[in-house]
């Protein structure tokens, strides 16, 4: 196992960065441009599409002023330029319904969704990998079929349905967990507040975990199986190492690459699931913000929320992509 000289390794990483980052930047630009184009292409009143339905109820001078700010009277390119410049400054527009800038509203709610998705991602990964390791090392045809069938079934259930059932059982019937919200309205501080937040997190996170652990399991299992056949594992076995050692010191690190990258790449799907789950539990994250914006025809807020969420998901994807060579020892060779 000749090791790659440090210089060459760094060079490779940089090269990867140089290729990947511009691709992602391009994606972000496309997302921003789509945000710009969408309201201008859709059927409907430009005022309403650009400023939200509420804008229709403002006095005429205010509306004219706002449109001038947006530059609706200017040629398209100028509008685009101003829009992009605004984005770079962090200006996502103004919500007339809430009378606050979109970026403030998004910043208030985004951390909660990140908390929810992050927790669910972590738990489902650990659980999925552990279950897969167990399944691989204790193989048997019937058990295989059963486990694949079970986890595929779990993946097929509509997330909100599972969420509703959990809500009925634990919150409404057993009354051990809160029915709604991110945090209770009574002010709590310190440890009590942390506990309160965790209590409210249990059911939504459990729902997300139940519906995403299947995919992690199937993927982890496939990776581990693939790795188990590799030469170096056979060598390790031949050397007489115990199964557990083979598993943890050799197979798992090798299999970790596809698992890790696919976990990170699943953030997008999980974020989408979170939007629905937030609704079931009235969890005040960015998902419910987007739905409120959708029903309130508050287009700037809706698009701002989607754009920020996309940014976050793209960022995580980029990290997953960059992590690619570092986790797999084979690549380092």
């Amino acid at each position, binding site marked *: 196992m000749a090791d790659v000289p440090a210089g060459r390794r760094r060079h490779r990483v940089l090269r990867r960065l140089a290729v990947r980052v511009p691709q992602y930047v391009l994606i972000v630009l496309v997302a921003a441009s789509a945000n710009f184009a969408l309201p201008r292409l859709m059927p409907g009143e430009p005022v309403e599409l650009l400023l939200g339905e509420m804008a229709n*109820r403002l*006095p005429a001078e205010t509306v004219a002023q706002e449109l001038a700010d947006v530059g609706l009277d200017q040629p398209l390119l100028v509008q685009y330029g101003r829009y992009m410049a605004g984005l770079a400054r962090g200006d996502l527009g103004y919500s007339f319904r809430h009378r606050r800038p979109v970026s403030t509203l998004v910043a208030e709610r985004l951390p909660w969704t990140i908390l929810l998705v992050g927790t669910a991602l972590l738990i489902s990964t650990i659980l999925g990998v552990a279950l897969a390791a167990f399944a691989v090392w204790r193989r048997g045809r019937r058990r295989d079929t059963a486990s694949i069938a079970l986890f595929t079934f779990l993946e097929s259930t509509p997330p909100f349905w599972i969420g509703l059932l959990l809500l009925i059982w634990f919150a409404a019937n057993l009354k051990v967990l*809160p*029915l709604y919200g991110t945090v209770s309205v009574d002010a709590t501080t310190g440890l009590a507040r942390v506990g309160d937040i965790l209590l409210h997190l249990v059911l939504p996170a459990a729902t997300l975990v139940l519906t995403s652990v299947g995919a992690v399991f199937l993927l982890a299992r496939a990776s581990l199986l693939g790795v188990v056949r590799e030469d170096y594992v056979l060598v390790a076995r031949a050397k007489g190492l115990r199964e557990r050692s083979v598993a943890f010191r050799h197979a798992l690190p090798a299999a970790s690459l596809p698992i890790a990258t696919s976990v990170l790449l699943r953030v997008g799907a999980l974020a989408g699931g979170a939007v629905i789950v937030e609704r079931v539990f009235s969890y005040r994250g960015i998902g419910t913000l987007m739905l409120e914006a959708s029903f309130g025809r508050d287009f700037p807020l809706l698009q701002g929320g989607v754009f920020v969420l996309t940014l976050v998901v793209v960022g995580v994807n980029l990290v997953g992509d960059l992590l690619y060579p570092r986790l797999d020892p084979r690549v380092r060779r």
Partner: protein
Amino acid sequence: MRRKLIALFMGLGLVAAACASDDKPIEQPAPGVTTTIPQVATLRFANTTGEKNITPWTQGSGYPGYYMMTLVYDTLAWLDPDGKPQPWLAREYSADPAGLRWTVRLHEGVAFHDGRPLTSADVKFTVEYLQKNARPRWVLTNVDRVETPDPLTAIFVLKQPQASFVLNPLADLPIIPQHVWSSIERPLEQTTQLPIGSGPYRLVEYAENQVHRFQANESYIKGRPIVNEIVMPYIATTQAAFTAVQSGQADAVSASLTPELKPQFNQGGLKTAGGAGYRGWYLYMNTGRPPFDKPEFRQAMAAATNSADIVATALLGAGATGSPGFVHRAAPWSNPATRDSRFDLNRARSLLDGLGYRDTNNDGVREMDSNRLEFDLLVRNNDAVAVRAAELISQSVGQAGVKLNVTALDQTTAGARTWPDYAIGATPRGDYTIAMFSWAAAVQQDPDFLRSMFHSSTTLGTLNRAGYKNTQYDELSDQQSKAVDEASRNRILAQMQEILARDMPAYPVFYPEDIFPYRVSAFDRWVYYQGVGILNKATLLAPR
């Protein structure tokens, strides 16, 4: 040893002194009350409407919004549970024989939450400020000026007699403090500054779409409130709110139960309070668009709507059918001749035949020349009962040969589209042919609303969603607004209802029964205010 004893006695003395100077221990009943009603520390009232800051310019819904606002602000008069106005901030009020000068005398010693006294200057200021920064609920165009001969007397000088003057503005207009609002140029922007009023509660905390927290005003003019603190958490879905009441996470809720839940909430420490609600669902028709521009066509639609069936099915019987005369059957001015709805498919069919619409190609839908009788029936999608009702209407109207496609839209869009094809004042024009629309209870409490609903002028008919134009109706509605004598006013109102029943610009389909659940152990003195709801500041005060 002696020094220690002296220290001990001094300590005891200090403690005794401290206890003696303690003002009001928590359990002391309000002054003037002989029975002791136990104080309630905290009441958790779940709110399912997203109320913002509760000033007169930023407050949202009719119920609970207006009633949250009036926890903090007072009006000169106030409606009792039967809907009759009683003096409140005012000690008494009366009009001169011509009905043009209303003299209002205030109570002594009313103070705002910041300690400043409430005087007639504040009343005058409120009227003038609202005339400058109008809100649709309080139309003050008829008030010429307010005279303030002394700090406790305000004289409203009207341009014309106003029959509903006591109902609105006296019993409805919140009095705002001049010393706070005189420096505020843009009242619509007051989204964060907490309101200061004279009411029994102070808003001490508010987070948009999360919670409102009220603290009792211990020196309130009508006595100390029974409940010390009211917390109103926002719960996005009514079902979650009902479940919260059932599981004890909330003590009451602002939404009315759907009828199938009634049995659940009359057991296990839960009770319901309610009655005939005034909030109604109406079938609105755009009278500017053919074929709905013909009264016979609208009559046909009404005749083909089976209100009784809708109440029996979608409401499980818990509701009242609407009256063709538009006024709720329980209102004192309801015209008995136009009170009952009649479902008559044959009549509908013959009306349509008479207009020339026939089903020539046997597809179940009538047409004439190239005009097929197929329309989109708009309804908002966040009220399951309303969507079901729309489906039922579509089915029964379909039997007469008119096809209605139920189109469920989000509430804001549905509301924004249900306006005529021309703008009414600041309200932009809409886009609908036929729609289900719900009005809050308030519109059935004051007959003056009949003018706002159907007057053809855009300054007086501010709520004319059907785009109805009838000069005879206009004249009558102007007359009733000035008719101070109740009997003659009711006669005019009866005539107006006959016109509406004949022309049918909008057809009230049903009024759901109000069923408000609450936890008995938390607070059980709830009173249902006729047609409106249970949240009312008067309920939270000790009786005198």
